[in-house]
């Protein structure tokens, strides 16, 4: 508990979290502070490229672990299974329509790569190592949840939501391709490659993350301002309970697989986090009748801030305690 609190305090007072808080505050106060869409997108490409590359280099460095394949499979299973849990939980906690519940469920099965990035940076500054291939696990967990959620809907008699185009869009969405692609580039070029571009992808990383989280804060804050009315208390509570449920599933998985302390923490983070890019886009295509205000406000306005501020320290502390790391 003490460790959780001290880690939470350190985390809350880091430039990264404070930048996020600044963004939220500015948006709630209706400041016109804003980061151009192109710049935000540029930063997200930078972060994906850097995190993928570094993961690949770490795999090149430490060799393929026997757990790589099993971790990928476990990630896919988690992503596919968690939507059903979320769907059930929503039926208990909120009274959303089946469509809205399924759309929300898809988000919580999938992952938020920025949460993942923030967690790796907490691990780093705590000196806890993690498997480099966890970025590949992150990529693998993006899509299955979408298929799962559509299957939940189709069980209710409503089918023909999925077609080849949508499937390709989901599987080859930009962030998956960039993450996996740069992971392989890092793996192939290894430390030699890293040395050449270290001054670009390693040293300024934390700073870019600050500005990116400033933007995320602005977006989340605007979402809260506009969308807070749509969320009933039960649904709001889901936005905090579901991450804890997901993290528990991730914890069990990580312990079962026998990955490192950092690996367990990242499994918890991935399972706890909710998508706010790939899944919303897919939902607009496949479930246009579902209300975007609900799933975006929940994922970006409730769960993302929760994980960023309290969730990550909790997950890291629990993982440390249970793995003796």
């Amino acid at each position, binding site marked *: 508990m003490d460790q959780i609190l001290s880690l939470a305090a350190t985390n809350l007072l880091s430039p990264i979290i404070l930048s996020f808080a600044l963004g939220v505050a500015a948006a709630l106060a209706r400041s016109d502070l*804003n*980061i151009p*869409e192109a710049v*935000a*997108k540029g930063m*997200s490409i930078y972060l994906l490229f850097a995190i993928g590359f570094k993961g690949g280099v770490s795999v090149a460095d430490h060799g393929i672990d026997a757990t790589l394949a099993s971790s990928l499979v476990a990630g896919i299973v988690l992503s596919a299974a968690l939507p059903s849990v979320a769907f059930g939980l929503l039926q208990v906690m909120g009274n959303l329509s089946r469509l809205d519940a399924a759309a929300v469920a898809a988000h919580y099965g999938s992952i938020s790569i920025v949460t993942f990035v923030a967690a790796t940076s907490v691990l780093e500054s705590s000196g806890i190592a993690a498997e480099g291939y966890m970025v590949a696990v992150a990529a693998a967990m993006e899509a299955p949840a979408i298929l799962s959620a559509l299957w939940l809907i189709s069980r209710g008699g409503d089918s023909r939501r999925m077609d080849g*185009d949508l499937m390709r869009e989901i599987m080859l969405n930009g962030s998956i391709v960039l993450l996996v692609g740069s992971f392989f580039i890092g793996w192939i070029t290894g430390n030699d490659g890293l040395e050449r571009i270290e001054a670009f992808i390693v040293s300024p990383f934390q700073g870019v993350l600050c500005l990116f989280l400033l*933007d*995320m804060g*602005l*977006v989340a804050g*605007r979402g809260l301002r*506009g969308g807070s009315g749509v969320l009933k208390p039960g649904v709001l509570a889901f936005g905090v309970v579901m991450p804890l449920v997901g993290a528990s599933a991730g914890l069990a998985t990580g312990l079962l697989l026998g990955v490192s302390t950092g690996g367990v923490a990242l499994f918890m983070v991935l399972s706890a986090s909710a998508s*706010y*890019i790939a899944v*919303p*886009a897919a*939902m*607009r*295509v496949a479930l*246009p*009748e579902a*209300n*975007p*205000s609900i799933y*975006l406000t929940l994922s970006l306005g409730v769960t993302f801030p929760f994980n960023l501020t309290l969730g990550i320290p909790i997950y890291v502390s629990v993982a440390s305690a249970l793995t003796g790391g």
Partner: protein
Amino acid sequence: MQTHQAKRVAIIIELVMQSRLTDAISEAGVTGWTVLPVLGGSGRSGAWSREGQVTRAGGMVQVVCVIRPDRLDTLLDAAFTVVDRHIGVVTVSDCEVLRAERF
């Protein structure tokens, strides 16, 4: 200068549906259109804005199509199959075009 009667169809639609819309109207034999960016808007599903969006999910575009009057219905039918379940506004207006041989 000689001009010719035509119809101008403007469809405001979500970014994620853009390629589905243009695919559908191409299949219906329409080969000319232009896509314009949209910064924000408001409608029955609330207000939205491009500012600081990191996600493809929230954006919209406007697809404009100038077409011979006799082809209008084909176009609208094709567009409607895509727009139907989705957010989207379709307007049609009269216009005249130069160089009608192009349409």
